[in-house]
């Protein structure tokens, strides 16, 4: 999915409500995907995405148009996701669930059913590993952009992606072998 025209960002930065609506339109599904896979809860993901866009709106005047928009957007989103996870952990401490992971909603491209193994496998990563893996492999971000999005150095990120890939491969092979 192509990065949005910087002109739309410029207009939104200047206060054009419709340009901002276009920004939301362009990135909403993608942000939702990332948030769902980070917080593993449809409700929390939607809330995180909404909070993220509101933060984007507030912070847009400070955004330097010479920079790329997407790493900046994902930095805000990743922060919201971390906050959501913290809230969920607190919530879980009060209410106990018989199952580990809560309900996941997957609508998208004709699929009405979630892949059980898929979500559980993602949950076996640490937050840092999952974040790095998703940004690199699912969002297709380069390490420099990921560094902007996470505030972490490139070599640390590379280690996290490698570690995440190893863990995931091992879990998936377990699953496939039944």
């Amino acid at each position, binding site marked *: 999915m192509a990065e949005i025209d910087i*002109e739309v960002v*410029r*207009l939104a*930065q*200047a*206060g*054009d*409500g*419709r*340009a*901002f*609506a276009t920004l*939301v*339109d362009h990135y*909403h*599904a*993608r942000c*939702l*995907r990332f948030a*769902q*896979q980070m917080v593993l809860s449809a409700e929390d993901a*939607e809330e995180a*995405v*909404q909070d993220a*866009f*509101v933060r984007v*709106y*507030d912070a847009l*005047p400070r955004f330097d148009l010479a920079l790329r928009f997407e790493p900046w957007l994902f930095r805000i989103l990743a922060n919201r996701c971390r906050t959501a996870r913290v809230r969920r952990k607190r919530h879980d401490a009060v209410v106990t669930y018989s199952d580990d992971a809560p309900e996941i*909603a*997957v*609508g*998208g*491209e004709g*699929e009405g059913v979630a*892949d059980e193994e*898929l979500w559980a*496998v*993602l949950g076996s990563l640490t937050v840092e590993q999952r974040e790095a893996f*998703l940004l*690199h*492999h*699912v969002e297709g971000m380069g390490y420099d952009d990921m560094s902007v999005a996470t505030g972490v150095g490139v070599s640390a990120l*590379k*280690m996290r*992606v*490698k570690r995440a*890939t190893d863990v*995931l*491969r091992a879990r*998936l*092979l377990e699953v*496939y072998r039944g």
Partner: protein
Amino acid sequence: MDDLNDRPDEVISALVARLQRMPASEPRARAAILARVRGRTPAPWKAAFYWLWQPSVPAAALVAVAVVALGAGYAGRALVAPRPGLVAVEPEGPALTLVANPGAPRLVATQFVVELPAAASVSLVGEFNGWDPAATPLVDPSGRGAWEASVLLPPGRHLYAYVVNGTVWTPDPRAPQVADPDFGRANSVAMVSER
């Protein structure tokens, strides 16, 4: 380490393919976002300030937008500045028509006549009046059911119909009709020109 990360094997590739599927993005969720930011409009002075720092925007438009923003209750509905390629903007509030084509077409006085002796009221509705039954009522001066109204229309193809007694959708019996795939009620067609 680079190589291992950048050449994922089949297992990882399959996982990534599944993860890359987009979730459904509900209009309500997006609308909720917009509703929340509407309550956080930047101060009008701030909007004008940022406009003034956009070097690529023509000066005349800057002044025009700044005036509107400062004077007319800006609330996040700014006008879009003209750019090559961005042609049409429908203004809200104080009229600033930012159309690329400055030459407005000449309007043609067009008379609509329909015989509906049993009607208590007849309205003309069409794209030209936003399908508003209150905009163009017809009159029956003779009282014999010969309803008429005259409107100024630009030359070209126009879709219209009559609304009888406030509710009954009535295409013009004397004009060609066109099916309505959107809502299932046929419209009438008028080809308006100066001759």
